């Protein structure tokens, strides 16, 4: 418990010994947490550590089971998110709270429109312009939200928060959806707000962002604060170790793959508008990691390879060019893609396990009529093989836990017996225990002689799984690392473009 920076000012917003239970299970165990004016306080921890519960309690969306929420030293006078906003405590959620068809101005004044019987458009537009100017943003007040890039939408959220005279701004992984350049813009705004005396809570899985921004860091694990530190007291490695609570290497299988013949070769592959001129090879029995920031074109590349996006370039399987225009073509060429978006693109949440398992390979379960018995048998095998824990076989997949959904999605993908498997974010939103199971499956796929591509934003995952790493930046391959050169420093350098050779594209546009 090291001392935070000088304790001059009393905290603006504070949690004192806060506990929260859902039913009989306590998920927050006596949290003390304080936000000070003019400071960025980073809250970090693994998924499920309790970050979002803390943010919900601070923002008035949840009431603590015991303990106190204090605003300016007095019990917080709000019992809902709307009341909290009125008190100057504003939460920017990961899914933006903006009406896409309304303009920037209309969104900012939504629910508090100026004017009497008729709207005072001029005053609202002027107010919006003033806010945007203050933020140094060039967004037009008349622009519709749906026409704006994600970073601009974030800016609108920040402007909206400012218009509510936010004294406390709680940001839930604001950089997760932003490109490198957009993150820079966001950081400048955060620094500006800090200078204006706003108390900020910042969460991110990218530890380098925490190092750069945070004046204080609080590390959560399993619903308890395990570490508090001031600026510069904790290295990124120290943060990661504190978050996980054990050595990271333990959950990864040992890397001992024997790479065989070339199974897949990609030449001059472009997926407009982002991915340009990507070439790489993939061998049998190999795990190839693809790293890069969100927005660097990793998912677009994968979706282009399996025919989900129009693409140009050459794909060779065992040296023979193949034409892939749809997921069916990809499957016929033995290539399968496991999407990062499990809930919206991977599984039918309101259908049963069986219907989900066999959807992409239904033709194998009977010519004219579907053979229900063979489907059930396939599900039994999948449950055993992938350790899917479902209370009932006929339950809706949406009611399974994230980890079991991911195992089912893996089982569904493997039912087609693909030789090349592209797995996008294999462990997003999954607990540590299931993670190591999924890593073992991936390892087993490679050991069977299949070729696996793992796309991940999770740096330890890339380092722990990959035999070879490709790093993408701005839609191009920024570099390739193999063997002993697969280290966090080298990957991060390539991801961020800091060891840029003069021939490469500039990282700041």
């Amino acid at each position, binding site marked *: 418990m090291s001392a935070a920076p000088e304790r001059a000012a009393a905290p603006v917003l504070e949690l004192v010994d806060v506990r929260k239970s859902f039913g009989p299970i306590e998920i927050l165990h006596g949290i003390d947490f304080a936000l000070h004016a003019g400071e960025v306080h980073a809250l970090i921890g693994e998924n499920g550590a309790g970050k979002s519960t803390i943010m919900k309690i601070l923002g008035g969306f949840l009431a603590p089971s015991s303990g106190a929420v204090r605003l300016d030293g007095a019990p917080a006078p709000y019992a809902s998110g709307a009341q909290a906003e009125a008190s100057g405590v504003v939460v920017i959620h990961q899914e933006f709270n903006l009406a896409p068809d309304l303009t920037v101005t209309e969104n900012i004044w939504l629910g508090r429109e100026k004017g009497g019987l008729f709207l005072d458009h001029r005053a609202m537009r002027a107010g919006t312009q003033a806010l945007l100017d203050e933020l140094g943003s060039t967004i037009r007040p008349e622009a519709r939200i749906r026409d704006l890039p994600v970073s601009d939408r974030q800016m609108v959220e920040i402007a909206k928060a400012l218009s509510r005279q936010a004294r406390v701004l709680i940001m839930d992984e604001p950089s997760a959806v932003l490109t490198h350049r957009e993150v820079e813009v966001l950081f400048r705004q955060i620094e500006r707000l800090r200078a204006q005396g706003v108390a900020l809570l910042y969460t991110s899985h990218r530890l380098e962002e925490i190092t750069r921004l945070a004046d204080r860091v609080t590390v959560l694990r399993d619903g308890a604060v395990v570490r508090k530190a001031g600026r510069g007291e904790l290295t990124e490695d120290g943060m990661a170790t504190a978050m996980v609570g054990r050595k990271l290497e333990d959950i990864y299988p040992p890397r001992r793959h024997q790479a065989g013949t070339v199974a897949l070769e990609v030449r001059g592959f472009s997926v407009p508008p982002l991915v340009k001129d990507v070439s790489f090879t993939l061998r049998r029995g190999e795990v190839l990691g693809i790293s890069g920031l969100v927005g660097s074109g990793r998912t677009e590349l994968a979706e282009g390879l399996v025919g989900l996006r129009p693409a140009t370039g050459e794909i060779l399987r065992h040296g023979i060019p193949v034409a892939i225009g749809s*997921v069916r073509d990809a499957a016929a060429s033995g290539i399968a893609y496991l999407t990062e978006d499990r809930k919206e693109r*991977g599984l039918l949440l309101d259908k049963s396990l069986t219907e989900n398992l066999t*959807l992409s390979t239904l033709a194998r379960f009977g010519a004219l009529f*579907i053979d229900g018995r063979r489907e059930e048998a396939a599900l*039994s095998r999948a*449950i*055993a093989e992938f350790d899917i824990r479902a209370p009932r076989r006929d339950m809706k997949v949406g009611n399974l836990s994230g980890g079991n959904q991911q195992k089912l999605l893996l089982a569904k993908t493997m039912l087609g017996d693909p030789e090349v498997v592209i797995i996008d974010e294999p462990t997003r939103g999954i607990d540590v225990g299931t993670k190591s199971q999924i890593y073992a499956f991936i390892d087993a796929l490679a050991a069977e002689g299949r070729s696996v591509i793992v796309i991940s934003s999770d740096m330890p995952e890339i380092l722990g799984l990959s035999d070879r790493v490709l790093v993408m930046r701005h839609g191009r391959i920024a570099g390739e690392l193999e063997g002993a050169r697969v280290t966090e420093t080298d990957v991060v350098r390539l991801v961020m473009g800091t060891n840029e050779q003069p021939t490469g594209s500039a990282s700041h546009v």
Partner: protein
Amino acid sequence: MSDLTRSDAPRPSVAARLPGLSALGPLLALILLVALGATLNENFLSAGNITNVLARSAFIGMIAVGMTFVITSGGLDLSVGSMAAFIAGVMILGMNALLPSMGVGLPLVLAGMGIALGVGLLAGLGNGLLVTKARIEPFIVTLGTMGIFRSLVTWLADGGTISLDFGVRQFYRPVYYSGLFGIAWPIIVFAIVAVAGQIAMRHTRFGRYCEAIGSNDKVALYSAVNVERIRLMTYVLLGLLVGLATIMYVPRLGSASGSTGMLWELEAIAAVIIGGTALKGGYGRVWGTVIGVLILSLIDNILILADLVSPYLNGTIQGVIIVLAVVLQRGKSSSA
């Protein structure tokens, strides 16, 4: 692992094998209606009345079975009533035109049937291509074609009625009025369509894909399902079934006009919804649709027979039932 070994045997629970309450609800309503009809009028359960009700249900019924697939896969077709009128008009004009060369007889009727199915197929294909290739909302596409078909048949009839030649009509009549083993042809054809539809929905890839697409078309696309082709097929299938319904309908009156098939689209959609198919797609119940069709025609029949309330209030009662059915559906899905 003990949990797993237990779930290894394919043994669905009792609750899963029985149809859910949302499936039983329409059936209970149908039984109640039959009981009500029987107590109100002794002729209700007579063979004549039952045949009458079923035969009248058959047209909407065949269309509603096709509509079930369209709605299940997340689509909608408002054009079916106008399409039926248009098909009837073209079919009658075609048969009249062929009469001099072919003469009255089976070949002429078969030619007429061919025309009806062909026009139905093309009409469905048109709707389907506009939805899948031009990517226009099904509501908009079929609202447009609804107006087009309706105006075309009015134009063909020059504002009046297109009548089938009297001699041909006499020859064609038995297709509606006669039957097999005392069961009228429309009822037999409807039964075959319903059974085939149920099997297609439950036991073929087509049905499974329709449900998957309606449930989440992105997941279907990522799962190697040919989403556009399945969607197109649902509209083509519906067009063919509208053609089939028209084949059974034309011998009844022997004519077509601008008001033929008026509001059939709404009755068909209502039957699908009452039967428990979700309007937003994802769940299809062909049996439910059959029950929905029967409920709608029974209400009509009971009002006429029972003299309880004015038959003019038929629409009111049907409307209340449709709204109730949707409210009950929503209650189910939110509690599940």
